[in-house]
């Protein structure tokens, strides 16, 4: 559905600048925690906040201001994590008009239309059009991580692993672990890696940075490619891909499909519950779980990764103060890591400190993009924390299984 500025009018009336979206809702049942990474990065400057998005929109609607490059930092430094939405008084009352993530994505798309996009975002947008990934890599290298020749994989299968760009080009260990698990389970699966049936960027980096037309193009390609595999279930290890395909393809681009899409933690937990996935090796480790925004807040998947971790023998799961819908963002999303790495480092360093405070040995997440942001902060900070994706621990627990 194409949004218009007027669609946000109701929300502008409802935003009362109470600041729950920045420093934490202090209402019963909601933890009073810091909420917004980019607000905190800016020393709690109210200009950089969700309420500022709404009040700016109010002025835009009144015609008192118009979008210009002056708004670049305000609109593109937000990680679109949605923590502000969770803390909003009106959201707590299930008010549908105060979706700040939707608003900021809309305003970004207007900025791009007016030629005020962020250069580095536009650059990776062009590369996605050409090589179908935002990492300036060649498309032909997308499957380099496969532990076997891609021709070994069938063209059609019941399960299709949608790898995503980050796991394909950067956090390859996550892609490998996922394929190894699928192999060991002996499932009828494949990876989309044939010409015409090949996986492109899911479009999430484009959608988050205001390039929705390009995002729709890749979405249409991916759906066609998936349909050709005859997949009944599509598995993603990336939470960004998961949100994009399962929610945004339908809601934003009106695209339809009849396969099921699951994040790897949901898929694996389901197998554990059915008794089809058993663990032989204990993983003796105290871990804490970081909720990826795209999986948690945006899609409501909070318990599956936790249940899966708890099902692994030897794992002790401890929670950080800000968890589930109130989790602190790693700071990498929304195109921020590419354009404003300082903000990402600020947010992820903050998160690492919180993880260290739990006394955990390792920080676990379920998103390769979070992995990257958090890993960089561990290195920068010299932290002793290890970092894993949930699938890596699942693979460890499965090793040596006959």
């Amino acid at each position, binding site marked *: 559905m194409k949004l218009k500025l007027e669609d946000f009018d109701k929300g502008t009336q409802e935003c009362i600048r109470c600041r729950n979206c920045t420093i934490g809702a202090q209402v019963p049942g909601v933890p009073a925690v810091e909420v917004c990474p980019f607000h905190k990065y800016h*020393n709690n400057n109210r200009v950089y906040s969700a309420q*500022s998005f709404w*009040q700016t929109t109010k002025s835009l609607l009144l015609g008192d201001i118009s979008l210009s490059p002056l708004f670049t930092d305000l609109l593109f430094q937000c990680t679109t994590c949605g923590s502000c939405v969770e803390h909003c008084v009106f959201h707590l009352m299930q008010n549908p008009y105060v979706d700040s993530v939707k608003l900021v994505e809309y305003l970004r798309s207007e900025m791009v239309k007016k030629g005020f996009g962020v250069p580095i975002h536009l650059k990776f947008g062009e590369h996605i059009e050409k090589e179908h990934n935002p990492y300036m890599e060649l498309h032909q290298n997308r499957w380099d991580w496969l532990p076997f020749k891609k021709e070994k994989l069938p063209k059609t299968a019941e399960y299709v692993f949608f790898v995503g760009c980050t796991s394909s080009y950067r956090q390859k260990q996550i892609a490998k672990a996922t394929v190894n698990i699928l192999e060991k389970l002996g499932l009828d699966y494949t990876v989309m890696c044939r010409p015409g049936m090949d996986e492109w960027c899911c479009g999430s980096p484009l959608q988050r940075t205001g390039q929705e037309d390009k995002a729709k193009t890749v979405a249409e390609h991916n759906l066609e490619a998936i349909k050709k595999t005859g997949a009944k279930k599509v598995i993603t290890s990336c939470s960004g891909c998961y949100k994009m395909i399962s929610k945004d393809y339908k809601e934003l681009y009106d695209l339809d499909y009849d396969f099921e899409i699951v994040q790897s933690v949901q898929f694996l937990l389901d197998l554990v519950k059915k008794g089809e996935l058993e663990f032989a090796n204990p993983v003796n480790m105290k871990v804490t779980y970081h909720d990826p925004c795209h999986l948690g807040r945006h899609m409501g998947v909070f318990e599956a990764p936790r249940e899966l971790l708890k099902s692994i023998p030897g794992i002790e799961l401890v929670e950080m103060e800000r968890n589930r819908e109130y989790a602190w963002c790693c700071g990498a999303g929304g195109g921020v890591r590419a354009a404003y790495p300082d903000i990402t480092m600020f947010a992820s360093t903050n998160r690492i400190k919180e993880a260290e405070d739990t006394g955990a040995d390792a920080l676990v997440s379920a998103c390769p993009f979070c992995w990257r942001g958090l890993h960089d902060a561990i290195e920068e900070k010299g932290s002793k924390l290890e970092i894993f994706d949930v699938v890596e621990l699942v693979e460890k627990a499965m090793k040596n299984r006959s």
Partner: protein
Amino acid sequence: MKSNPKYEISITAQKELTDLLGEKNVCFTRDLLSVYRAKPFGQMFREAVNPHGMVQPETVEDVQGILKIANKYEIPLILAATMGPGACLEGGLIVDMYSRMRKIHKIDPECGYALVEPGVTCGQLLKALRPHGCWVSFGSYPPIQSNLSTLVCCRAQTNAIGKEDDFCRGIEVVLPTGEIVKTGSAGLGYDMWADTHGIPNLKWLWQPSMGTLGIITKAAIRIHPLGEVQDIVIAGFNNFDNAIEWSHKITREVMVNTSMVWSYHWVQWENYAHNNGKGFVKYINDMLTLKPDEAPPGYYPMYAFASISGFKEQVEGNVKACQRLAKELGGEIVNEKFKEQNPGCWNKWEHSFLEHVNPGMALERSHIYGVEAGMEAFTVETNVRDGKSFHHAILRRLYEKHGLRHVRYYTRQLDHGRTSFQRYLFMHDAFDQETLDREIEVEEDLLKWTSTKEFKEQFPNIVPFAPVAHSSAVGEIGKKEEEIPVHYGLMELDRRIQEVLDPNNIMDPVMRRKEE
């Protein structure tokens, strides 16, 4: 964006402010400052413009520096606290006191105060007080609201869930010229913050505002022991006069923390607002058939309640006295029935009065109405005797002149019953512009009515809440400053004080110019 070019902040001044506070704590890009444009109410947003700049201090030294620079370049200042500033009518420099000045300097349960900076929130302070066995008064605002901006600067509006109407033992203020002044014993160099008898109590010069004669940087907020036992007495009455009589009598005897009278309409409004909208449809249906000040069968048109805390024996005795008095005035104790009939409203009271937790839900009704609903209110301060006759007169005017049958209202007893605070809200569903405009029209009519000679002769003890000195920049009712009768000697004196304390007129420029 129209504004007064006189308020432009020069590049030199911008640089000095940036050097003082750091780049992250200033903003001079005007287009980005819509968030500081006005108070949250839509009407005022339309009248206002974006400010010319924003600074956010962290320390009292920062505030001093800002004031010195503002004086040097004659930059008009607008103070901002929790929910935006007052009306930024022509521009100026926002001083955001909320974002970084968030320290609780001291909690002294024995002396009964907490020394806080302007950004300390109600929720933050309530949480910090709990281990000390204390609580702080709060109003029908969300817990994110600054204690200082509500209790100190809009005092009469925020004692809904409190014990008194003077919330403050003393303040630290930076004068427009940059000097620091402390009031009371702290001003004499003592560590204890208290009013003292030996010197004039100057705190009231600044207290109704955050920044028209200086900027308050600390306030010693009164705190109270939680008490051994908490209780609530709810009494139903068939008429306003008896309900307010009950509330007044028990308050005058200093036996309750808070006592209020809520009309049936107010109860219902709060009820569905605090219960996810449940009860809304029934209420609307009831309204179609009800006469003014009438309630459906099984309900009372007036509910009066009292919150009581203290030692067990004391609470038991006070509850009994409240019950007896209600009976004598023709009322009935309806605690259990009320809970059953009005679960949402009860939920709010339970949180507020028994648990001393700010439920933070006063604004949540907007999920039905939009936040602008009901924000236009008409409020007076009076005494119980005159309050009764005024009550009937205003209801008659609202019905006869504006066709409003079901007005919701409440009253509170301030200063242990010496002042009756009466507030009237006109609309039940003001979420569209047309209704909002009508709401404003009604309010303006009431303001005109109450400022006529005939009204003053008829009601010499009715003081409309709007004309409050110093509230023009940040006060709850900032936009009404033109209503202040400047010819009165008090206001003339006030103007002279302003001239002395703020020679360059940087603190309240819009108001002052009108007087010139």
